[in-house]
């Protein structure tokens, strides 16, 4: 993994290591100079072994969370990298001729890597002589180890011996004498296979293909490739790795493929391997591709663009764009400006402008300039080179790392809840530890120890626990990460992805150091708090005295909090992150609550009443701040950050729980009084209730911390459950996603005959197996919307929908133009009247989202949150220019629909335009009642493979996506749930401590006649009260914030609606409650068995 939350991993590791080792060194130096305190601390550790073990486990939580997040990310990165290595083999770059309309994004890329189609499916054939030309040009290039022409195809194959059919096989055709750098072929026993001397129509299968086809040497295979059926014999079975990678692959000589498919001299890839081994060769990729690009550029197109960019306007625009670019792009633009000083374009110029990154940026600029100058700049850039060099290994590895980092980021943000809970547990544990040692700390102070030294004693003790706990945390974290990976293995297997667990030593070190640092900071805070003990009260074991009336501390501390809060809020204005402004509001509110104390006391309020009033009001404000609808208090809404970044989830959660706990902790007495009154007449229960309430009320800090720990984790689980349920319900509706169709048939190459015509003569399916067949064609085009501030042509995907599609599709619209009240009215208008169009949901932006300066068409005037909009006029034309056609957009398609992007209109509307033939056709089929979609899909594939068509079951896709969402839901819930352990452990620690602390009290009660059972019931009831308060806070606030978040999200994604998964939330609450009771059971049992005489002798 290269980065987390956008920060480079190396930087994180260096900073965290420096903090950890620096802190450790400082503490060790101080400890060695003050050995007695060090000794005191170290000897305290084994005093109570069971308690020490519990403390170490509690402290391990932060490390567990961090380790789990990092390991999961590492595993995803490593798995994708392995898949890439298995797919691209030894090739670092490939030269291909991409189809103009082919564009893959996001998960498509990953899935294509997983199923081996990463290098296929979007390519067109070209002359093998291009490979020879490249090989000759690179012959003296030191950085290149080998150049090889190849044809790589995704094929369907059948083993004729056993009927085994496989649709996801790769056919890899190579020259008989290929450069050895690409790897060798060996049989299962490790002996080399003579590839050069393979007979005609023979192939080699690697291990994965052998298993998939259940094949043996000598068996015959039928391979469907490029519309032909090839009959071949298995000549040998090879081992995986080396040449073929781990994808199921059939290898054959290139000349044989060309002969059998009658495509002499045609290839679809040139593979280039750099010098170095499998890991170092990729480092040369950018240099090698820069060397290759000029060799692929059309000199005429380069001259055109050079001339276009030499204009003053162009150079001024390029210079003006510089400040907004990243370092790499800045360097490129500066180099480009230098090249534009020359009269004629150089190779360097060609290399720069054909760089894919810069090319994208230049596209819009050249289009604009071309329009101004009346020249064909856009098309010049488009025809710069028909062949492209792809840094396939580098890009796929980056993709793999990005996915790994993205997952880690999600886990880290969600893990923040658990880390916060763990931090509270650490504070709670050390507050209790300090409470236990209170008298000793008081004596140390009485003997002349300064506060710092007292704090250091606790800190050293904490350090021992911390170092051990971090190690435990790393081990447990690895275990949990592997558990999550195991959970996801079966679902991801459906996508062809096999997760390979991975433990990166650097991540383990980072997790250890980070966990240790987080814990150490919490311990330091607790130690500082403990060191402020009142000496007299500590020695005599009395409660801490209240703050003096005339103390200036509240004014100073509160004032500082207010100033820092206001400053943070002011400085964070406009930030896309919610954390700083959210933190600013919390600091200001708490500061105000602290500052007003002396004034309230001066007004005649008692100290306790003043505390209750100020903290309750502060808590109430913090809750209202996040939960009030924007319309309720406009000024509050302006102050509140919008949920545009994931960190809001965390900052809102923490603030809300803090607010609720402030109110609860300050009003426990009132609640307890009401509860006592309610239970006053309960036979035998009144005394138990009274005793169970007494301790939580007396120890407000502990109670508040435990409620907060429970509340925070339950809160995060509830919010995650509501949001995931909302998206799950929105995107698991096959009708909305696939328009009610069951099967989709795509072209694997151009020129396939119409599907209906093929079905007439198909072997395995009949036309009446399907009740509807809708066809969508697609071609790249340009669009412009007059009257908007974007006055340039932008690329758009232009689709036509045939009559049957508009009559049978079930998908609806998220926005309708005025005058069209129903979905049917829109589809009918598109079908029956020329000039009408609809736009894909993704081509409409939300009102709150700033329009991005991109070169892809977005409709202005209609927003996602608007159900109604005025019909919008859009002009479309071919990317090469030519006659434009006016379209009136009357509907925004449901964003869940998976029919493609851009604009949709009828074939008749486009008839008048001078547009090329569609480049891609997709047919959507609905099976007739009683027919099974899976069977029909197989039948279609058997029947249509020769016609360059491939069928896929849409329901299967939806199910897989559903499975993936469920998996994500489960994984996130399980991950967040780890934090629940902290809450439960906290309750356990409190209960155990309570038994020790109240031993005399229990003895006295037992001596007065209270039964052991009643004592046990008291403890269990106490745990119940605390756990239920936490669960109530978490569930209430979680549902409250989810409602607000869904309200916001639904403005952009109206399909997501608020709905509470009560069953799931009930399950979470029940689990938390039962676990809390189980944790308390043992201390309660011990309390019940306390012997009165022994307890009264205690101390």
């Amino acid at each position, binding site marked *: 993994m290269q980065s987390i939350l956008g920060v480079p991993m190396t930087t994180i590791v260096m900073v965290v290591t420096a903090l950890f080792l620096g802190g450790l060194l400082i503490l060790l130096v101080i400890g060695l100079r*003050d*050995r*007695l305190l060090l*000794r*005191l601390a170290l*000897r*305290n550790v084994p*005093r109570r072994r069971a308690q020490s073990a519990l403390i170490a486990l509690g402290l391990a939580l932060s490390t567990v969370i961090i380790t789990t997040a990092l390991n999961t990310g590492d595993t995803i990165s490593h798995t994708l990298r392995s898949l890439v290595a298995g797919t691209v083999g030894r090739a670092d770059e490939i030269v291909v001729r991409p189809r103009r309309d082919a564009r893959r994004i996001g998960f498509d890329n990953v899935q294509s890597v997983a199923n081996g189609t990463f290098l296929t499916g979007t390519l067109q054939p070209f002359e093998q002589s291009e490979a020879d030309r490249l090989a000759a040009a690179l012959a003296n290039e030191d950085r290149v180890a080998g150049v090889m022409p190849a044809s790589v195809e995704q094929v369907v194959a059948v083993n004729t011996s056993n009927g085994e059919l496989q649709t996801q096989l790769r056919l890899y055709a190579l020259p008989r004498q290929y450069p050895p750098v690409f790897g060798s072929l060996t049989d299962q026993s490790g002996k080399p296979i003579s590839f050069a001397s393979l007979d005609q129509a023979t192939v080699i299968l690697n291990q994965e293909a052998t298993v998939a086809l259940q094949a043996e040497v000598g068996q015959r295979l039928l391979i469907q490739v490029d519309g032909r059926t090839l009959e071949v014999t298995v000549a040998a079975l090879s081992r995986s790795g080396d040449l073929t990678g781990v994808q199921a692959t059939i290898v054959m000589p290139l000349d044989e493929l060309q002969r059998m498919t009658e495509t002499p001299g045609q290839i679809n890839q040139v593979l280039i391997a750099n010098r170095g081994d499998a890991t170092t060769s990729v480092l040369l990729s950018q240099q090698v591709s820069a060397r290759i690009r000029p060799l692929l550029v059309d000199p005429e197109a380069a001259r055109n663009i050079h001339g276009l960019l030499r204009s003053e306007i162009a150079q001024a625009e390029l210079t003006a764009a510089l400040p907004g670019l990243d370092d790499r792009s800045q360097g490129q633009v500066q180099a480009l400006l230098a090249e534009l000083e020359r009269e004629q374009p150089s190779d360097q110029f060609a290399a720069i402008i054909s760089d894919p990154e810069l090319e994208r940026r230049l596209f819009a600029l050249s289009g604009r300039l071309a329009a101004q100058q009346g020249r064909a700049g856009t098309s010049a850039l488009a025809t710069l080179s028909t062949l492209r060099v792809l840094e396939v290994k580098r890009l796929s590895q980056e993709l793999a790392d990005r996915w790994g980092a993205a997952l880690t980021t999600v886990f880290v943000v969600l893990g923040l809840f658990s880390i916060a809970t763990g931090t509270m547990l650490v504070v709670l544990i050390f507050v209790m530890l300090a409470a236990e040692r209170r*008298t*000793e700390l008081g*004596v*140390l*102070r*009485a*003997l*002349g*120890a*300064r*506060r710092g*030294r007292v704090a250091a004693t606790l800190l050293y003790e904490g350090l021992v626990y911390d170092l051990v706990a971090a190690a435990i945390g790393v081990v447990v974290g690895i275990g949990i990460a592997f558990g999550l990976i195991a959970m996801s293995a079966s679902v991801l297997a459906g996508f062809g992805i096999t997760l390979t667990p991975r433990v990166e030593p650097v991540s383990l070190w980072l997790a250890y150091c980070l966990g240790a640092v987080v814990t150490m900071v919490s311990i330091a805070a607790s130690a500082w708090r403990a060191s402020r003990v*009142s*000496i*007299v009260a500590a*020695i*005599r074991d009395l*409660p801490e*005295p*209240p703050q*003096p*009336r005339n103390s200036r501390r509240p004014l100073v501390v509160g004032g500082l909090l207010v100033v820092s809060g206001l400053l943070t809020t002011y400085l964070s204005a406009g930030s896309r992150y919610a954390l700083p402004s959210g933190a600013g509001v919390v600091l200001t509110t708490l500061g105000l609550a602290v500052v007003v104390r002396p004034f309230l006391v001066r007004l005649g309020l*008692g*100290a306790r009443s003043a505390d209750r009033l100020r903290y309750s009001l502060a808590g109430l404000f913090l809750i209202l701040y996040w939960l009030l609808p924007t319309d309720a208090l406009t000024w509050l809404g302006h102050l509140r950050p919008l949920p545009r970044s994931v960190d809001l989830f965390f900052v809102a959660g923490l603030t809300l729980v803090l607010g609720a706990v402030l109110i609860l902790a300050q009003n426990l007495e009132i609640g307890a009084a009401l509860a006592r009154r309610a239970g006053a007449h309960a036979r035998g229960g009144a005394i138990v209730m009274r005793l169970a309430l007494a301790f939580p009320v007396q120890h407000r800090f502990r109670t508040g911390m435990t409620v907060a720990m429970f509340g925070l984790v339950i809160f995060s689980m509830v919010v995650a459950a509501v949001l995931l349920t909302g998206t799950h319900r929105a995107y698991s509706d096959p009708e909305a996603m696939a328009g009610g169709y069951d099967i989709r048939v795509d072209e694997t190459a151009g020129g396939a005959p119409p599907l209906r015509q093929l079905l007439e003569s198909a072997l395995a399916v009949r036309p009446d197996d399907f009740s509807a067949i809708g066809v969508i064609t697609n071609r790249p085009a340009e669009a412009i919307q007059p009257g908007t501030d974007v006055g340039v042509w932008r690329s758009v995907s232009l689709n036509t929908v045939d009559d049957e599609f508009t009559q049978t599709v079930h998908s609806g619209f998220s926005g309708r133009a005025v005058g069209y009240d129903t979905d049917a009215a829109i589809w009918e208008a598109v079908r029956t009247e020329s000039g009408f169009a609809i736009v894909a949901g993704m081509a409409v932006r939300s009102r709150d989202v700033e329009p991005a300066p991109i070169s892809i068409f977005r409709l202005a005037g209609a927003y996602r949150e608007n159900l109604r909009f005025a019909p919008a006029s859009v002009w479309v034309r071919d990317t090469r220019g030519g006659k434009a056609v006016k379209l009136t957009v009357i509907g925004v398609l449901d964003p869940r629909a998976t029919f493609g992007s851009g604009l949709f209109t009828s074939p008749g509307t486009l008839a008048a335009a001078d547009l090329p033939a569609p480049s891609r056709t997709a047919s959507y089929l609905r099976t007739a009642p009683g027919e099974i979609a899976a069977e029909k899909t197989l039948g279609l594939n058997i029947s249509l493979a020769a016609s360059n068509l491939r069928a896929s079951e849409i329901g299967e896709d939806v199910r897989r996506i559903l499975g993936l969402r469920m998996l994500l839901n489960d994984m996130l819930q399980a991950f967040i749930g780890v934090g629940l352990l902290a809450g439960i452990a906290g309750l356990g620690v409190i209960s155990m401590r309570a038994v020790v602390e109240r031993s005399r009290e229990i003895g006295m009660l037992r001596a007065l006649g209270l039964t052991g059972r009643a004592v046990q019931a008291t403890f269990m009831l106490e745990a119940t009260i605390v756990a239920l308060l936490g669960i109530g806070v978490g569930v209430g606030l979680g549902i409250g914030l989810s409602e607000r978040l869904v309200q916001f999200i639904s403005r952009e994604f109206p399909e997501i609606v608020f709905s509470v998964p009560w069953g799931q939330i009930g399950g979470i609450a029940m689990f938390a409650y039962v676990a809390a009771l189980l944790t308390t059971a043992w201390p309660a049992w011990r309390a019940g068995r306390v012997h009165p005489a022994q307890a009264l002798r205690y101390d």
Partner: protein
Amino acid sequence: MTTTDTWLRSSAIVEARGLRKWYRTGAVPVEALRGLDVAVQAGEIVAIMGPSGCGKTTLLQCISGLDDFDEGEVWIDGTPLRGMRDAQKADLRARRTGFVFQAYNLLPVLDAAENVELPLLLAGQRGREARAKALRSLDAVGLHDRARHRPNELSGGQQQRVAIARALVNEPAVVWADEPTGNLDSDSATDILDLIEQLNRTNGQTFVLVTHDPRVAERAHRILRMRDGQIVSEERPNPSPARQNGQAQSGAGHQLPASGLGLQPVPPQSRPPGTAT
């Protein structure tokens, strides 16, 4: 200003004027010390007695710098406590005073020698010197052979001896003791009192003791009786034969003039800080 006042100011090791202290834990504040004045001369053993809740422990805590007071002023060895920062008070406790508590309050994870050397290390002494002094101090209380024993391996009397060794090890100007015999049986209590008396005689150290025990009071040079946050009387117990012998050696107790009750009503503002010595 009388001649006696001048003499008192120059010889008092501890002095408090107009000392007031309120406790505000409940709804109604309780005035624990009601503007009392007190002075303790160097080398004196002063016993503070009175019924429970009369404020004797509060007085000890306020004049020893363990607790804050609301009004008045306290000087220890001429140094005023009011306005002193927490760290300065800690240093004062580490270098100039020693404490003995009713419950001994030894640190359970340290052995006797380590407990005794604690104040020295806190005062910044080097480890080896501190250990040597700690062993000498333990020797002085008759526990040299118990130096490596932890508190739970010692009897109550032995623990209190260790606590006294700890209180005396840094040669403090004054030792504060809160019910030093409260947790001890009769024989152990006598041993401890003998020890205190002997140390007072031989080292001239000042002891301020809070006690309910008349046997402790008997050994004091002066007894201050308190009621409701005020000193209501002062007594000089009849010296025991043992004390009469000892006084000849130390000369501390009998230096007090006959009229030196230590309760002279001196206006607080009349005394500039730090002028006692």
